[in-house]
């Protein structure tokens, strides 16, 4: 896939023209291997990430996924800034799934954790600076002059006090003739001299996304491709005992049915026929171990566990002693349900499994086309599944219609579906999940129960805090176990509860409470696949922590924002964020009858973020969120326009969750199935969002999930301020508070 800024159209029309105008052939060109493209365009490889054409086009091999996060744009900005090229001359191409393109932080080909900007900051800038330096050296040689007499200007090397200038593209001949190569040690720009970084920059793949030409995974069309639809056991983990496909095979267009790990797949010449055939299948299921599970049972078991001692994650001071000696302790239990990601593009993957020419029992290679956050894991799982070397699995990366964590599946579930369906077919197979399968897909934000106890000092300031966290671990027993499990505890389950850094998470809550104890229970991982969901641990710890802190503020007669200012007085970054929030919200003014404010402050993955919401609550429980003011400190703001998008998006998905989000398991089955019963926010629910970015010279840190973390508790705290009702089990709709 290639994108360019200004030439989106011309490049596409070239591709269309060259390909004869049909979808499948366009892909043949777009997905041509990098080596082919190099020869075709006589590009010169500058380093792992950059190629330059004689016509001065710069190709960036991009090694992070674009799912709305803006990674393509902000990473290209870093390269363009250091390389000093015209923004309109950069095009992107997917970097292959090879170790040299792995995230330096994860050591995998993975886009996750709101760390893309941080992880790419040095590699992208260095790649750009290496290229610029190479062209400067080439010009110095060509013109037999001192490199110090030269400078660059938007893709050209120029002589400061002379007439000579050359495009980078024209210097490729010199680079080749003189066998020049990029140097590893090059100096980077002083951030004060950035020209592109820090400016509002529209997304590089924007045009494709408004004229219908953007190719997502679900849009892949390949010659001879079949479509697959899977009949799955209604109980997660169940298996098909037998199936009768006589009605299915009578559906026009259906080719065959067969067993795959996740159920029975129906293959057909188009998706509608596959789905119609799937719906006509008669399957006898063995529902397995999970048929009696229910959300209600999980809640009651977890509440019982929350009263028992757990594994000790943190014990600052002596909370138990202080709480024991305090007469009026405050206690609360918070309950958060399972949540589905419900990305707009349902899960899907296209796979082509090729047999060895010499030995048709053997598989020679596999290609997959997948909107995935996690290329290297998909590649590894597919290689094990087919028993072929990892490098024999090619992962193509179409655009991604939303992810929010879902498409970083550790089990590669939707990828495995397609590969198993395609295995033995000798044609590509695209498996598309229906929305119902997607909602019931069991990769959920796990259900959590938090029990909290607190004590105040004589000034009403929190003196002791004791939190017990109960919920299924995301990382336990996965390949991430060594990095994310600390003394048996999942750092994601506790992220946002701990005052001090824990494991690889080098940040705490930003607050300082003198006695602070947190315990953790990992109940058995049954029934669902606990999974990352935008802001991960903070989606539940944020509610528990920030709502209970609000309870303590209320009990101590403190203003909730002033209390947080007090608790962060030794944390300058969060304290600054809170001060600006107070100013921008006119916090001490009254909003008038029926209206109220709530706020919360969270530090997720380094960047502190605080929000205040203004709501209107009607007597019948209906409420609107009128305005959200968000202040974030994400270090250097690479693309403020993109940051604003991410904040708006993070807030939106968080409001959906706190207002409506609820996946309920009853008799082992997921009750919800589609957007009519898994409600999400729509345009009429959307508040006005005001974003304030703290100016900074710190390294850029993430914004993708940060704004999701405080919004749910801020809304719940506003509901309390307006109604006096403290909601402690979610979503709000369970208690008659209906977002309008």
């Amino acid at each position, binding site marked *: 896939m290639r994108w360019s800024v200004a030439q989106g159209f011309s490049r596409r029309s070239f591709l269309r023209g060259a390909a004869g105008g049909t979808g499948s052939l366009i892909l043949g060109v777009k997905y041509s291997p990098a080596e082919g493209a190099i020869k075709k365009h006589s590009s010169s490889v500058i380093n792992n990430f950059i190629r330059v054409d004689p016509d001065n086009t710069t190709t960036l091999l991009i090694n992070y996924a674009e799912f709305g*996060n803006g990674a393509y744009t902000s990473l290209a900005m870093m390269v363009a800034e250091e390389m000093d090229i015209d923004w309109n001359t950069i095009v992107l191409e997917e970097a292959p799934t090879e170790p040299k393109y792995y995230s330096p932080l994860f050591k995998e080909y993975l886009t996750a954790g709101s760390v893309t900007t941080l992880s790419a900051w040095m590699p992208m800038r260095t790649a750009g600076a290496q290229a610029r330096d190479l062209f400067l050296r080439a010009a110095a040689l060509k013109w037999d002059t001192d490199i110090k007499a030269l400078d660059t200007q938007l893709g050209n090397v120029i002589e400061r006090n002379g007439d000579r200038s050359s495009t980078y593209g024209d210097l490729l001949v010199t680079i080749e003739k003189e066998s020049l190569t990029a140097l590893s040690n090059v100096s980077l720009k002083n951030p004060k001299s950035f020209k592109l970084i820090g400016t509002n920059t529209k997304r590089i793949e924007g045009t494709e996304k408004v004229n219908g030409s953007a190719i997502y995974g679900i849009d892949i069309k390949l010659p001879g491709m079949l479509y697959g639809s899977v009949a799955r056991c209604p109980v997660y983990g169940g298996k098909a005992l037998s199936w009768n496909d006589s009605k299915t095979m009578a559906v026009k267009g259906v080719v065959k049915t067969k067993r795959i790990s996740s159920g029975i797949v129906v293959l057909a010449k188009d998706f509608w026929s596959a789905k119609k055939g799937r719906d006509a299948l008669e399957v006898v299921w063995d529902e397995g171990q999970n048929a009696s599970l229910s959300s209600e049972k999980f809640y009651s078991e977890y509440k019982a566990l929350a009263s028992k001692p757990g594994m000790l994650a943190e014990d600052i001071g002596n909370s138990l002693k202080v709480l024991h000696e305090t007469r009026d302790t405050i206690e609360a239990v918070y309950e958060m349900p399972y949540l589905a990601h419900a990305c707009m593009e349902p899960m899907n993957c296209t796979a082509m499994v090729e047999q060895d020419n010499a030995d048709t029992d053997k598989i020679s290679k596999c290609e997959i086309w997948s909107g995935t956050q996690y290329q290297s894991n998909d590649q590894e799982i597919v290689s094990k599944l087919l028993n072929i070397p990892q490098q024999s699995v090619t992962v193509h990366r179409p655009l991604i219609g939303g992810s929010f964590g879902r498409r970083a599946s550790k089990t590669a579930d939707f990828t495995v579906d397609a590969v198993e369906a395609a295995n033995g077919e000798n044609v590509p197979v695209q498996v598309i999940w229906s929305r119902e399968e997607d909602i019931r897909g069991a990769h959920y934000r796990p259900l959590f129960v938090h029990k909290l106890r607190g004590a105040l000092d004589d000034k009403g300031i929190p003196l002791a805090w004791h939190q017990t966290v109960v919920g299924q671990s995301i990382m336990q027993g996965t390949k991430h176990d060594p990095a994310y499990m600390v003394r048996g505890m999942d750092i994601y389950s506790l992220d946002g509860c701990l005052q001090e850094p824990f494991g690889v998470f080098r940040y705490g809550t930003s607050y300082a409470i003198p006695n602070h104890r947190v315990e953790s229970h990992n109940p058995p991982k049954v029934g669902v696949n606990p999974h990352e969901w935008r802001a991960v641990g903070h989606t539940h710890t944020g509610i528990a922590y920030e709502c209970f802190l609000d309870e303590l503020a209320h009990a101590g007669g403190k203003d909730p924002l002033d209390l947080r200012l007090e608790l962060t007085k030794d944390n300058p970054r969060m304290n600054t964020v809170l001060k600006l929030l107070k100013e921008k919200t006119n916090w001490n003014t009254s909003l008038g009858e029926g209206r109220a404010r709530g706020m919360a402050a969270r530090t997720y993955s380094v960047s502190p973020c605080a929000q205040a919401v203004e709501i209107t609550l009607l007597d019948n429980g209906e409420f609107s969120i009128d305005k959200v003011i968000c202040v974030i400190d994400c270090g250097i703001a690479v693309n403020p326009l993109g940051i604003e998008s991410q904040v708006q998006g993070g807030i939106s998905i968080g409001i959906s969750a706190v207002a409506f989000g609820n996946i309920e398991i009853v008799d082992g089955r997921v009750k919800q199935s589609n957007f009519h019963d898994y409600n999400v926010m729509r*345009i009429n629910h959307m508040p006005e969002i005001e974003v304030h970015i703290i100016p900074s010279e710190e390294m850029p840190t993430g914004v993708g999930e940060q704004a999701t973390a405080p919004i749910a508790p801020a809304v719940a705290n506003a509901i309390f301020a307006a109604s006096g009702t403290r909601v402690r089990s979610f979503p709000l709709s369970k208690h008659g508070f209906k977002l309008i």
Partner: protein
Amino acid sequence: MTTLSVNEKKHTVEVEADTPLLWVLRDHLNMTGTKYGCGIAQCGACTVHIDGSPQRSCVLPVSAAEGKEITTIEGLADAELLNEVQQAWLDFDVAQCGYCQSGQIMTATALLNHNSSPSDEDIDAAMSGHICRCGTYQRIREAIHHVANKSSVNVK
């Protein structure tokens, strides 16, 4: 055999009469700009114009679209141009993942054709049948107002 007029071109397809128009567009005509989101007319990703009016192609049997003029996102503007709504979407950098935006743009275009200066309430009424999980709603609203303020003529 079903004959359809899509973006002012005639196409003949051989499909069952109950096949939703969405899958005919996507799988038989290879026009993938129109998206599948829910299959039950809840999310709006599949919105196309039928004789100028926005409809959910995921629940519209192809037989019901026969003899009518179907416009998809690919046909909103001529050749390589964008209509004013698409241009405003670019100018306001509306799209994030972008998956729902074809449908959003189809409905916004129809809204502006019908009402050249929609109020916030008009926008809510017209656009609330669409879901964007990336939360681009604020910029969608700004882009629609921008087109309305800029022009009083039909956007297409």
